């Protein structure tokens, strides 16, 4: 069975604060069944490389700031088949999760150990939709922000296990993605963060729809 990281605590969670109804509203393009495709740039100093990536949303629980789905990487050199992973997302809604990650590894760079918070800010700032929020985030992690009407959704996606290959496939899922989703057109931008990999590997996806001329939405409801 694939390697899973089990978190005992979630320091980035904000408990006990009430902001009324400031959770992000449901955004159709980020709902269950929705698919996205694009690329992940895995370039290093040696070469330029990009994998084709498909993402599908499987589960969504806005009350708990939770999202999950699968990620499929195609034309991966080390693998014979597309590699599929299952990921879980934390939605930065300032109620369940803030912009501060607080886990998943400290950063050690040539400049010494960076604080987690600085790392977070460095990555979020790479999204053009983030700067208007910067000052508030620097002050208190964005706890007092009302993101419910912001046309972008910020998330962290963490791959939890490989669905169709073994852990010896040569790939790693040790890192996580900083993700920014645009509610208006469903485009996704992300940066893969893994202290042991090249920094700022970019993920760029667009909403897809099986060759249709338009958007299609499916539904399920758990009892």
């Amino acid at each position: 069975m694939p390697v899973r990281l089990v978190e005992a605590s979630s320091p980035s969670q904000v408990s006990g604060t009430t902001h009324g109804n400031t959770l992000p509203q449901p955004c159709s393009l980020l709902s269950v069944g929705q698919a996205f495709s694009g690329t992940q740039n895995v370039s290093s100093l040696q070469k330029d490389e990009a994998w084709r990536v498909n993402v599908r949303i499987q589960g969504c629980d806005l009350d708990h700031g939770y999202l999950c789905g699968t990620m499929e990487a195609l034309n991966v050199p080390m693998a014979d088949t597309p590699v599929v992973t299952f990921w879980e997302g934390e939605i930065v809604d300032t109620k369940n999760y803030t912009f501060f990650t607080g886990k998943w590894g400290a950063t050690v760079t040539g400049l010494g150990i960076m604080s987690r918070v600085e790392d977070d800010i460095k990555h979020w700032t790479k999204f053009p939709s983030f700067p208007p929020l910067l000052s508030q985030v620097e002050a208190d992690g964005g706890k007092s922000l009302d993101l419910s009407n912001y046309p972008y959704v910020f998330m962290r996606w963490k791959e939890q296990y490989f669905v169709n290959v073994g852990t010896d496939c040569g790939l790693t899922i040790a890192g996580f993605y900083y993700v920014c989703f645009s509610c208006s057109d469903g485009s996704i931008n992300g940066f893969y963060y893994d202290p042991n990999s090249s920094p700022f590997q970019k993920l760029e996806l667009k909403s897809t729809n099986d060759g249709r001329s338009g958007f299609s939405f499916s539904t399920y409801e758990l009892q």
Partner: protein
Amino acid sequence: MFGVTVYAVDRSDPYSTQGRSQPGLSYPQTHHLPPTTMPASVASSNPSRPENLIGQLNSTHTSYEAKLKALRDLKNQIIGNRTKKLAFLKLGAVPSVVAILSSSAAAQDGGGDNLEFHESVLVQSAAAIGSFACGLDSGVKAVLDAGAFPILLKLIFHPNEKVADAGARSLKMIYQSKLAPKYDFHQEKDMEFLLSLLNSENENVSSLGASIITHSCQTAIEQQALSEAGVIKRLVALLGGSLIQRDASLESLAAVVKDNPEVASRLVLPENGRELNAVIELMRDKYPRTRLLACTCLINIRNTYVSYLQDSGIKKELILILLELLNDPGQVGDEAPFVLSNLIAEKEGMQKLAFDASIVEKLCENLQKGSFQAKRLQGIFLALADLCSKLECCRDRVLHLKVLNFVTEAFAHDSAEVRAAACIFLKNVSRSVKNLSAGHFMNETVAVPLVQLLYDSCSFVQIAALRAISNVVVDFMAHKSLFVQCGGVKQLVQLSRSMESAVRVNAVWALKNLTFLVDNRCKEEILLELSTSTLTSLLSDPEAPVQEQAFALVRNLVDGTLNSIDYVFGDDGLLLHAIGRQLRNTSKAEVLVQCMYTLSNVASGKEHHKEAVMNQLFPQTGNDKETILVKFLQSSNSQLRTAAVWTIVNLTFPSSPGACGRVTALWNAGIVSQLKCMVNDPCLDVKLQSRTALKQLMMFGDAST
């Protein structure tokens, strides 16, 4: 309704046999007379056999001593022995015993000799009657039908303590049953009588008063009346009494305050709930039953008066006490999981506290101990279901501890309540999208026996199974074909035709979830089983919730690959026309939302798909004064507005060749001006997509001029 005086007293001469209509005591005998009329066969058989004992009680020739002995014998045989009770019941023992009770009661009133004898008879017959009523509804019925109730009621104030005890205990047994006569708290006389019971120094009599309240107090008005009569104060005082009084009082207090915040406040508010400290103390009592009753009482109060017991120390203590009571091998252990459910149901915070205290492990331990009485098994599954209702950590833990293995066994249990409880548990555990994704539920161990429950004889089990299946079929590992193979679809379709709407709606819900992201082969298998005509009739089901699920099913059918859209065009567009019809016929927003999303999905297809949608929205014939699309855009329901906007986005999708014509039609229908009002809609989705739609509509220029 009844008081001290309302009963028939036989004041006729107890020594006379003339005019007697019922068998009873004979002349006071000073010596034994051999029974001369006894049939030979009876005389030769075992005198302790039920028939013989009853015969002796009935016979006019049996001596006092013999009758008393027979009575004692009968009582000793039936106490704690359900089989014997049933046997004696069947033979008509109860009327005989009640007759003897009645005679002795009457004899007492008439004064006279043999007081001691009559008192012994009263004690033994009351005890026998109590035993018949104990835990046996048929016994209770027989006892009431034979007229025992008023006689017993009179006994409880008897000067002889033993007689009073026997009468009170017997009545308490009756009051444990739903069949007991309902006490009228509104009659002043009756309320006074009740208070006199509560004030009695005899513990059996005072606890009888409490039991009457527990049984009969049902409405808020009754609770109010009891509270005003000062009953609560008396009950609280009984908390400091004997064991019997404490236990009866705890149950009674819970009944008086349950779901009545006003009455509860009279306990909770004075001096910060000082009176309830006695209940809290009893939580720590040495008797397990008392601890359980105290927990139940506190939980009821807290569920009624929400701000009470905010102290997390007490909450944690409640959990730990219940945790320990789960170990009890008897009735207390059977009831403990139900009390736990009462504590944590719908309360995520309490569920977390319970999880942290390792309640999941304890409940699983109980399951592992092996086969239990059905009641306990049901309780454990329901408690586990409550724990897993909201918390992912609980679901994870439960799966890790391999509880699913017990579920399979429970599905085959004799008790319908156990089967249903196992389904409810599975439904809640399978709310875990993470584990659904990992394919933990759609396997042969779980899915196959679960499908079997769709054929269960009890409809509440079927419904519980349907609800669990609704979740389990949301499997992302493409195991849905397993479900089709084990006959699941066939039976779901069958149940979608049920007379019971609860069965229909859950069957269609399960089918809807099954069709989510499913491949075309599976879609075809489903449609083959379901048939377009059945699906069409579900779309116009008399119940709106069924319609809603059916439309959502169609919505899923036309999602996926482009050619999936053709499903609604089959049979001359049967389904498509049904959608169009329902758009105009229904006013239920939830149904309209699914209709519009279905049309929207169709409109994301090719040219002829988009045109077909236009025809449904803007029919050539018909006299729509107002375009329904505009009506939907103006709906107060944000989901409906969203679905309507998406439809327009799809109809005006730039790359499509025929977009221009559709754009013109939409302009003419006033869509553009309507959309312009929506660019700052409070719903983010509507706001953003109205802007997208407007942009697309504007691309073709202002066609209205």
